């Protein structure tokens, strides 16, 4: 990963997602900070991303990196957490029973994706589908159902839903621009995830060899015959075993 990507591109992308994730327009512009549920979902999301090797924390922060590099990596991690919280908050209704249902849906989906143990590409596809489905439910289905210019049938249906759930199901529709901004925000978030440093086997080997030998040369360069090393380079088998 280049310095520019780590220091500017990724924090910039994730901070933009953080900014736009709370953007709502109805009769005025409001910016909604992430609720507690979104923060918890973001933690699960980070765990899922690490398990699915979408990114390797060791490539952002480790002993082999300098202080400046570690600080830069920490910024990426913090902004990724904030962006994840806002991206998940974005596809979740703000209150009511629907908020709870969406949170449980996302929580189960993330745990399922994490437990499935798919590779990087597979997990990214899963996340695109999950976030896309939640986006469609919230910004297309619910917005259409609860639109203020809806017909009599829609009003009867929403009144029935509210009655059956004893007022638990409620939804405040937003202006159309909210959906467009939400779409762009989710797209930026997915792009950010794709740009994260992947935790593949090669990069892990490189990282561990760098720690063993105090340098960051590629794994294939270590060790040289003339310099006796404390031990040989870490092999792919050792990494997979342990």
């Amino acid at each position, binding site marked *: 990963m280049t310095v520019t990507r780590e*220091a500017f591109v990724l924090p*910039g992308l994730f901070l933009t997602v953080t900014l736009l994730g709370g953007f709502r327009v109805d009769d005025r512009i409001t910016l909604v900070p992430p609720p507690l549920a979104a923060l918890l979902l973001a933690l699960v999301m980070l765990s899922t991303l690490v398990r699915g090797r979408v990114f390797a924390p060791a490539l952002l922060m480790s002993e082999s990196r300098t202080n400046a590099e570690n600080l830069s990596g920490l910024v990426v991690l913090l902004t990724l957490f904030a962006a994840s919280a806002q991206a998940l908050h974005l596809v979740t209704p703000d209150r009511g029973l629907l908020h709870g249902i969406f949170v449980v849906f996302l929580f189960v989906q993330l745990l399922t994706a994490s437990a499935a143990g798919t590779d990087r590409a597979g997990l990214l596809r899963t996340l695109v589908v999950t976030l896309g489905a939640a986006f469609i439910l919230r910004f297309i289905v619910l917005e259409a159902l609860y639109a203020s210019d809806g017909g009599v049938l829609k009003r009867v249906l929403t009144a029935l839903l509210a009655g059956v759930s004893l007022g638990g199901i409620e939804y405040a529709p937003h202006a159309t621009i909210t959906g467009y901004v939400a779409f762009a925000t989710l797209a930026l978030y997915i792009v950010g995830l794709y740009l994260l440093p992947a935790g593949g086997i090669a990069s892990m080997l490189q990282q561990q060899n760098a720690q063993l030998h105090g340098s960051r040369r590629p794994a294939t360069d270590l060790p040289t015959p003339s310099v006796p090393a404390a031990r040989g380079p870490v092999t792919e088998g050792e990494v997979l075993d342990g």
Partner: protein
Amino acid sequence: MSRVAGLLFSVAYAAVILWVYSAEPQSRAEAVGGLAATIGAYRIDERAFDDGLAAFKRDAFEEARMAFERADPASRDARTQFYIAYSYYRQGWGRVYNDDELFAKGLEAVERAIAAAPGHRLDVEDPDLQMRSTDELKAELQEGMRRDASDFNPLRLFRERK
């Protein structure tokens, strides 16, 4: 060097985000003006303010407010917001009853003036005004919106607009 620059960029961007979330600007002018006010670089349009003041003094309140809003598009200047609030008070004041809607807008404006004033208190040196501080104006607006037995006091008909 690049990493330090990146860190500064991230910190600055995060600070802007925190400010935007706390201020919730409703327009580009409010956003830019608010950011400028945060670093002490916000200036009102003095010519538009003078136009507003002239209109205010001849009781052309709507015209005055248009000029004041042009002078202070970000609603960040305490003195301008004070005059906007005062214009709502004078326009909404009535010998028999006050216009609650205008008084409510006046209250919002005086709250903005208090928020923008250093130490949350503003004194305006204007001999044409009977209320020269934000506290007096706010109390008068709140009093005007209150419903109580004194509303039926016939002596109210002899009170004067401030």
